[in-house]
């Protein structure tokens, strides 16, 4: 897994609540057997009309906005457990998703793929939307070590929470398999004792 420490980037404001993983990557694109290439179809049915033409009204198609931070409305990533959603978002080029609330499974999947979910207050999220929408050049800084997210120009900043274990994993690029395999003897002992 890729390491994550700090990121400074512009952001794309997806001001929609309850974005479910079926929107992030529709089921018809889940037939692949590897992890790559899902970025082409991220938010497919919002990015394109059914006839394949580009939907100019969708934020990802608005050339004003760019960056590797996705700022999204409340309850992001609800619905299906498909990790393809996290793969699609990272494959498209995002490294951080900011929202006021994340669905459980999506949050875990993101963390397992080096995609940092940053949960902020509703007020901070609404400030973010307002500042990015009024100035698409707005730069954000996400510092995992310090657990802060800040808006460079205005100096507005907020702390975010992350599980200490997961933080260590992200900073070092470790994943859970490495850790679990190191506990094999303990797991086998547990199996014997609970038989």
């Amino acid at each position, binding site marked *: 897994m890729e390491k994550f420490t700090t990121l400074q980037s512009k952001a794309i404001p997806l*001001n*929609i*609540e*309850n974005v*479910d993983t*079926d*929107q992030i990557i*529709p*089921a*018809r694109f*889940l*037939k*692949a*057997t*590897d*992890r790559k290439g899902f970025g082409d179809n991220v938010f497919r*049915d919002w990015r394109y009309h*059914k006839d394949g033409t580009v939907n100019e009204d969708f934020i990802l198609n608005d050339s004003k906005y760019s960056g590797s931070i996705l700022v999204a*409305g*409340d*309850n992001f990533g*609800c*619905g*299906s*457990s*498909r*990790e*393809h959603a*996290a793969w699609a978002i990272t494959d498209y080029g995002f490294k951080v998703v900011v929202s006021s*609330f994340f*669905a*459980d*499974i999506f949050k*875990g*999947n993101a963390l*397992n*793929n080096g995609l940092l979910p940053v949960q902020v207050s509703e007020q901070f999220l609404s400030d973010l939307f307002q500042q990015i929408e009024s100035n698409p050049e707005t730069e954000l800084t996400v510092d995992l070590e310090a657990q802060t997210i800040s808006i460079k120009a205005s100096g507005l900043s907020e702390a975010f929470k992350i*599980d*200490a*274990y997961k933080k260590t994993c992200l900073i070092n690029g470790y*994943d*859970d*398999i490495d*850790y*679990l*395999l190191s*506990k*094999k003897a*303990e*797991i086998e002992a*547990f*199996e014997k004792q*609970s038989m």
Partner: protein
Amino acid sequence: MSKKTLFDKVWDAHVVSTIENGPQILYIDKHLIHEVTSPQAFNELENRGIPVFRPNQIVATADHNTPTLNQDQPVRDALSRQQLEQLSVNCKKNNITLYELGHKYNGIVHVMAPELGVTQPGMTMVCGDSHTSTHGAFGTIAFGIGTSQVAQVFASQCLLLTKPKSLRVTVNGKLKNGVLPKDVILYIISKLGTNSGTGYFCEYAGNVFEEMSMEGRMTVCNMSIEMGARGGMIAPDETTFQYVKGRKFAPKGEDFEKKVAYWKTLPTDEGATFDMEYNFDAEDIEPMITYGTNPGMGIKISENIPVDENASFKKSLSYMDFEAGESLINKPINYVFIGSCTNSRIEDFRVAAQYIKGKKKADNVTAWLVPGSKQVEAQIIEEGLKTVFEDAGFELRQPGCSACLAMNDDKIPQGEYCVSTSNRNFEGRQGQGSRTILASPLVAAATAVEGKIIDISKQLN
């Protein structure tokens, strides 16, 4: 000794160890896999040279991506066929039991595993599918996981998890005529919203759930994830034991009796506390229907769509082409789907058949009846339900996830409404541009007969 909840008891019995200030290592008893969320996990293990640790604790089925017609013939869609072949190859290579397409035990993972007695009270179970919460109906800790976690369980039979908070939803009282388990859970989600359960594991309590069949309990627990809860559980009781008894993988004889004695210790202790509690009155529940693009957007079928100025709410109504404040009664409907891991068990088809018997399907309606498994299909035939359906102009298809997520050819066309017994009404869930209205099998059957939404409670009373 401190009072424990059902969830505490099962969780605590599976903790291998705890990382200081971090997650716990939770042991997983059963791992269910299917073709869509497992291939990348198999690849990862292979690339890292890690063997599958406990292949005999894994059960595989093909369901998400399978056709519901002509299952005896090769799958036509090349990508689907490759994904299914990949599952067969991976299972063979790793000595994992697979009930592939056409096998007499094949079916939707959350229908076939309970049917075979793989699911048992007090277990921990996972699957790369969010509706794994279904198995909580047995007093099991069961939840959906991502593919990285599928790989973790392959490698170690464990997961690193932080213990969720506890939530109890209690429903007491007498359910009205025509109110099914699906209505109960749609009602709960409409009251609590789609993220009230996030971070929690939910226990359903009260006489309404105690009096439900296992099929009904599975329908309820299945949709726990639609209010954000990773899982839902119902205390095991005589109904549970009788369901499990005698099934293929259920413990037998003296073993079974021993297990039952243990299972009887699992229900929540009197006086145990929950982090959050909700109580509802059964009499307030009526046949339900959804009008929006998340499962929390539900109303009693007799009610009007609420009025709300929220932008996401308006976007949702615009997608559905509904007006705030309008009633859905008499809306013409051209598609009906009875199936999915929520409502494709024998009881669901009995309810539908009982309503349909002696009536005819409306001419404007295309109706797909998709059993959850080969065993359900066989039972439908054996009980004569297939004849009832065919006499009324319905077609019974072959098992699979089908139009619930429309990965196969069972897609609802652009702009069309589908009254569906599945679990999600997200934009495009049943096909690009399709509009899903979630309901019980009874409401779905009535819609198919009438060709429009009707107030089923009026018809019944």
